[in-house]
């Protein structure tokens, strides 16, 4: 019998490898809908700035990696017959499965405005998108970026370093509103403006007019910007459409999974951006759409595909790290804080340094940082370890930079 994994991102690849490791007797089929070896979307910004070539984005460097025990094939999942355990591909192929993993990731949402389907508009999601952007970027070119979320921000460096004249239009009142609080989101905006980027927050693209030599982008409050390239980075949504009719329950547009990463239909599992899984911090189920979560989902789903019930998911901590033209921002867990909790922060506005810690009683539950690159992972250790900080809580309130010391005190009684 065969395991079928749909999707060749980190969740799918890690799941396929885990399946192979713990159940080498069975074949793993890895189905992807892009004509490329499995690659990392996380690496695309570094491809755009030419730090790496396309091969540098590949998840696995050995060309033989997906050979025998894991068979990688190109195909578009079309429908699933859950009763007979068959996956149907768009080209008519049928694949019988012992267990199916939906690791189909997500895809960009295009804002529903006139002109968004024009030729000068692209997303920045796939290697193919990256090729198109690279071919268009040139010094002095006018580029308009829709969305200052994670994707928008992480490609800013590539756009700025190409010498493009850059305008960013963000609906939220600050940059990366889903990852950064008011202070850090505003500071990041200031950072970008100082790097020569025109940032419009609380602004919306209303329409895009396409002319032979350029496009004119109409923005709220009667603003107009000319652009030779429009990049839309206005959010993503899970790829789960092919499950229509299977009875697989969806939540927030993704597959609702239990703590074994199993959907409402036995034998069908989900992982990564396509899964609405347990959030460690909130105890609720959500789509985190981040790399570490995808990898953890993949490993746990695979174990349960081999032996259902063998591994129980404890919930993933939402975490993000973002490099925006050299300013590094981080978010963890409940960075927005919780009712009844308290917080502390330290801000050096001139040097773009910031740390904000959120507590529930004397436990750290979330954090935001700007400009911090040393020992930042300890925030995860403190949050996930749920350590009672005792007297170190007050020491952190007085000086939030003592996170390493607080951790050592909690774990080694230092």
């Amino acid at each position, binding site marked *: 019998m065969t395991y079928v994994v749909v999707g060749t991102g980190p969740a799918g690849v890690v799941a396929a490898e885990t399946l192979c490791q713990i159940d080498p007797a069975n074949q793993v089929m890895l189905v992807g809908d892009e004509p490329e070896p499995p690659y990392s979307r996380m690496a695309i910004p570094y491809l755009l700035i030419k730090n790496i070539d396309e091969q540098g984005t590949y998840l696995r460097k050995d060309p033989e990696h997906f050979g025998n025990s894991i068979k990688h094939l190109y195909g578009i999942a079309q429908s699933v017959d859950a009763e007979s355990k068959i996956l149907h591909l768009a080209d008519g192929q049928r694949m019988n499965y012992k267990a199916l993993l939906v690791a189909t990731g997500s895809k960009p949402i295009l804002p529903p405005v006139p002109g968004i389907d024009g030729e000068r508009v692209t997303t920045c999601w796939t290697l193919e998108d990256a090729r198109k952007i690279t071919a268009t970027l040139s010094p002095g070119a006018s580029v308009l970026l829709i969305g200052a979320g994670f994707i928008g921000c992480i490609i800013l460096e590539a756009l700025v370093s190409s010498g493009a004249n850059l305008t960013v239009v963000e609906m939220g009142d600050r940059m990366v509103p889903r990852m950064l609080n008011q202070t850090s989101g505003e500071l990041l905006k200031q950072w970008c403006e100082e790097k020569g980027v025109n940032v419009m927050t609380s602004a919306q693209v209303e329409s895009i007019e396409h002319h032979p030599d350029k496009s004119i982008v109409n923005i709220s409050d009667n603003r107009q910007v000319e652009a030779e390239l429009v990049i839309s980075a206005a959010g993503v949504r899970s790829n789960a459409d092919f499950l229509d009719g299977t009875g697989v329950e969806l939540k927030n547009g993704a597959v609702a999974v239990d703590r074994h990463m199993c959907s409402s239909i036995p034998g069908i599992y989900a992982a990564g951006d396509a899964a609405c899984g347990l959030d460690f911090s909130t105890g609720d189920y959500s789509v985190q759409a981040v790399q570490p979560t995808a990898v953890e989902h993949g490993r746990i789903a695979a174990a349960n595909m081999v032996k259902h019930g063998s*591994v129980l998911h404890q919930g993933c901590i939402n975490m993000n790290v973002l490099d925006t033209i050299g300013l*590094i921002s981080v978010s963890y867990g409940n960075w927005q804080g919780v009712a009844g909790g308290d917080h502390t922060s330290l801000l050096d506005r001139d040097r773009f340094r910031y740390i904000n810690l959120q507590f529930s009683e004397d436990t750290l539950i979330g954090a935001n940082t700007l400009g911090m690159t040393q020992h930042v992972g300890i925030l995860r*250790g403190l949050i996930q370890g749920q350590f009672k900080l005792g007297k170190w809580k007050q020491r952190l309130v007085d000086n939030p930079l003592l996170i390493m010391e607080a951790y050592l005190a909690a*774990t080694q009684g230092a």
Partner: protein
Amino acid sequence: MLRSLNINPDKCTGCLQCEMACSFENEGVFNPAKSRIKIFTFHDEGRFVPYTCTQCDEAWCLHACPVEAIKMNKETGAMEVLDAVCVGCKVCTIACPFGTVNYNQTTGKVIKCDLCGGDPQCAAACPTEAITYVDADATGLEKMRAWASKTDNQAHAN
């Protein structure tokens, strides 16, 4: 025989020789700020605690890396960053719950302890044997790794 760093904070005097040695070995300069081992000072308690990567079994950094830039050295058991492959995405720096993978803004890559390929210079430089490199079974390695279980996301049902 797998060896590991054994750290005994009670013997540490806070001289920072280990940081200097690490920085010189790996970065070619005597600059504690570039060291992969760090001494944390507890003024109120009068205590110094050397701290670096334990090369944990969970290898969060290795698993979180999207481009296979962190690999285990089978000789030493160390998780090593392959500079030529690392794109600098920093996901490992937030995934490591011990805070022992750091981003180097100068090179655009991450850095972590690699046990100096089997001859850790911090241990060689330590004058008080607060840091030693010994048989992994004889060390407090298991104790150190027990911390990892506190952040282990995969509790096994059985």
